[in-house]
């Protein structure tokens, strides 16, 4: 036993153990919680460790070639299903967001006009043979819609219901020459009537007729419904004035209007089935 404790291996073991204990003590005492031994080993072996990790990753990628194709087929199907589900959620989200934006606009309108009663409708068909952008909404008699009900989008006037079925209605826009809307220009307070014109409708415009030659209406003015006649409520925006032109057939003038709505892009609208002053 004495011989063992005097042998070289025993002394080496003792030195190593002391070094380890010292390393632990210095690690506990130092801020980095690492001993000089670990630091020295790290300096030597970290490049080797990096190389080993890189080799290990390459080997694991290589081994993927030996996995059965069934595994990948199942994985692809699973991912495709997940992708389809996420896309569907994305579509629902976008539709909900769009509806929310529309409802926010109408909430604002409803708060300003508590007497309005709406029926909501989505555009389900258009007539390509109609130059004046008439369209069909998916609300009808069963929703309380009747002929000559105004159709709005936000605070803009879109048109008027001309034909009603049980679950749908045909709307003519105010670009149609057969639709006339009593209106006034906001700045000058001059009154007239908005009507369609074929040559202007080709450019997507209409006219505010019945103005005097010395009218104060000018480009940039906003034209709204005046509420005269009881068909359209007051202060629905129709469009903005592009220019004022003297009439050729009499001594009046008319203003060329740019509608506030892009009728070709309209996807849903609200029908005003009741409001204060209707029919008066």
């Amino acid at each position, binding site marked *: 036993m004495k011989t063992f404790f005097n042998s070289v291996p025993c002394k080496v073991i003792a030195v190593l153990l002391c070094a380890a204990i010292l390393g632990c003590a210095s690690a506990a005492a130092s801020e980095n919680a690492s001993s000089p031994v670990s630091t020295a080993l790290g300096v030597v072996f970290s490049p080797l460790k990096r190389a080993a990790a890189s080799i290990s990753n390459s080997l694991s990628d290589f081994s993927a070639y030996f996995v059965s194709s069934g595994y990948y087929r199942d994985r692809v199907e699973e991912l495709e299903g997940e992708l389809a589900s996420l896309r569907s959620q994305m579509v629902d989200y976008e539709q909900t967001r769009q509806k929310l934006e529309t409802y926010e606009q109408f909430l604002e309108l409803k708060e300003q006009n508590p007497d309005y009663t709406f029926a909501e409708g989505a555009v389900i068909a258009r*007539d390509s043979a109609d130059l004046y952008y008439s369209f069909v909404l998916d609300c009808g008699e069963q929703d309380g819609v009747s002929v000559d009900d105004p159709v709005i989008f936000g605070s803009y006037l879109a048109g008027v219901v001309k034909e009603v079925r049980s679950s749908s209605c045909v709307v003519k826009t105010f670009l149609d020459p057969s639709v006339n809307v009593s209106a006034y220009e906001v700045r000058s307070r001059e009154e007239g009537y908005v009507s369609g014109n*074929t040559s202007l409708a080709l450019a997507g415009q209409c006219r505010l007729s019945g103005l005097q030659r010395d009218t104060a209406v000018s480009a940039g003015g906003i034209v709204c419904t005046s509420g005269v006649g009881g068909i359209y409520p007051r202060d629905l925006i129709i469009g903005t004035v592009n220019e004022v032109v003297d009439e050729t057939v009499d001594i009046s003038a008319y203003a060329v209007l740019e509608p506030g709505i892009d009728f070709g892009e309209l996807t849903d609208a609200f029908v005003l089935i009741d409001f204060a002053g209707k029919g008066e």
Partner: protein
Amino acid sequence: MFPEKRRWTVRLCVLLLLAVTALLRSGGLPFFGSIGGAFLVVPLLICLSLFETELASVLFGLAAGALWDYSSALPDGWMTLFCGVAGFLCAVSVRFFIRRKLTSALVGSALFLAVVSLLFSFSASQGLADANILFLYYYLPCAVCAMCFVPIDFYIVKKLYRDRNEDKVI
């Protein structure tokens, strides 16, 4: 002998084709836009009437016209009546005057498209000046676009109505 069952199958296919064509009117066609879709139903109806009996042509015309009326701002029933009459006249013409050829389809389609264009121009406008503008700048291009589809419609309908047993059109 053209089997009765096949005739009804063909008629069902044609009805679906009419429905799809009527639906295409709603949004317009790629490249052609809304001008391409306006009168799309007329060439198909004329081509179809060349190969069908008078009663079937009238019924197909009424169906096509009813689908047109659904989205039209014109008074209801107007296009239904017009398309029914167009189908009847075309089918009767085949019996007495004309043959089932592409030329007949082109002439018949051109005639009815001209009538439709003029009627739409005068009904949708106020005054002669407006009607001229409407006809020249909108409905005439619509009619020309619709004429481009006559050969396509003719060959589709001819293919559908070909009697495979006797290799001739029924």
